[in-house]
């Protein structure tokens, strides 16, 4: 192991890690938005929109992110839609993540028995109030474990951004292997940086999951 090499290229990995986290976080935020909208459309069974959402979810869940990105980044410009790699990465992550988020929110909503909504309505609450005070708080906490799993999944998926020339951790490692032939050192740094990013999220996830299990008595 050549530690001088590691010290020299540490800043490069830091920049790459920041890019990975930045794009990951922005993409995930959009994925949450897309997911929430889709889950609401499905929950309220809005016609037409609901069918569109169903098609979107199937398309998004049954194709790889890498293929989605190739199509967005290399294919779409042929029709005049020229996007920067960063924007493509975020769109791709939101497109993929949206459906996963939607599914986790939907299953969270489904765990709330209809009787709760009916009771809330009979107490004189409006539809919105029932949603806001009774259903959503419970549904959100029920979907936390799946949600955290999705976040980890999406952060991991950012590794394919390297294919559209984003200098993320993966590309940095590949590039250094190609430039200086220091395979071991480059891979070592790659693993270390992914651990730094993903380990805290994963630990947080299992903590939340354990708390949730205590909260969910009776089941």
């Amino acid at each position, binding site marked *: 192991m050549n530690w001088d090499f590691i010290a020299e290229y540490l800043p490069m990995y830091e920049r790459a890690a920041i890019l990975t986290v930045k794009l990951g976080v922005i993409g995930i935020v959009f994925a949450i938005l897309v997911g929430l909208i889709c889950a609401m459309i499905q929950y309220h069974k809005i016609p037409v929109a609901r069918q569109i959402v169903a098609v979107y979810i199937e398309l998004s869940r049954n194709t790889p992110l890498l293929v989605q990105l190739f199509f967005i980044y290399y294919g779409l410009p042929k029709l005049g839609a020229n996007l920067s790699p960063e924007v493509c990465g975020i769109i791709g992550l939101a497109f993929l993540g949206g459906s996963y988020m939607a599914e986790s929110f939907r299953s969270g909503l489904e765990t709330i028995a209809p009787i709760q909504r009916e009771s809330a309505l009979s107490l004189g609450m409006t539809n919105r109030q029932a949603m806001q005070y009774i259903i959503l708080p419970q549904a959100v906490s029920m979907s936390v474990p799946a949600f955290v799993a999705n976040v980890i999944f999406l952060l991991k998926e950012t590794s394919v951004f390297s294919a559209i*020339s984003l*200098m993320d951790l993966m*590309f940095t490692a*590949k590039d250094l292997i*190609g430039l200086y032939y220091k395979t071991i050192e480059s891979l070592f740094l790659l693993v270390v940086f992914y651990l730094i990013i993903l380990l805290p999220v994963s630990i947080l996830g299992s903590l939340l999951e354990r708390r949730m299990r205590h909260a969910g008595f009776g089941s």
Partner: protein
Amino acid sequence: MKNLKKFLALSLAVVLTAGVTACGSSSDNGSQKSGKEVYRTLDEIKEDGTINIGVFSDKNPFGYVDENGDYQGYDVYFAERLAKDMGVKVNYVSTEAANRIEYLQTGKVDVILANFTVTEERAEEVDFADPYMNVSLGVVSKEDNEITTLDDWNKDDSVIVISGTTAETYLTKNYPDIPLQKFDSYATAKEAFENGTSVAWANDNTEVLAFALQNADKGYVVGIPELGSSDSIAPAVTKGNDTLRDWINEEIKTLGEEQFFHADYEATLADTYGLDYEDSLVVEGGKKSE
């Protein structure tokens, strides 16, 4: 029974953890490795009956795959002949620029014939045979925004390079302020360049010239036809694989007598370049004419 299961599971887990952590724990290995050699000698290849040759599969007209799934191009034409004269079948391994050294050092291929420019840094990692083509760097750009110099660079513009090429090394070293847009394959780099991602693409001048000629109707010009030093392209083998390298050198010398690389040029490159570049590109018999 239970013990056996436990043992199996344990050993599995140990192997797995070892595999994952090994790259962190190995302290003193660089490119050299004790014990068994990774490469196959000439005799071993002949005995096996198949030679593994690393070529590009997306670099028209040097190494690419045609619509019937067959490898074609200047490098491939040579590879075919090499295998024929050795009396073995050829197995093409599709490579990317950044993987070429790696493939040789890990014995995944016996020879790299992927437009591999000879440089000092690379020669420390692999062994080059005698050259078969001349090359230098070049920069292609759009006619309406022709790039003729890399000095006074506008920092908002980027240059496309392919990861692991001499162009990347050269620009990183000599023009560290020019933002580079890096791609890992020729296919993706060209696609992005056509889509207007960057103002210029720096690569081997043979390649950018081919691109400009093939896409002349879309207004591409090679604004900088020669950048840096003039280099050559040669086959490469794993470091220390002398039997194979010597054989290739002999072969290149023999082929020179029949002007093989001129025929190669005419068969694969003339469609793109015309005949004007034949004498300046081709190196015959492994000897560069000064």
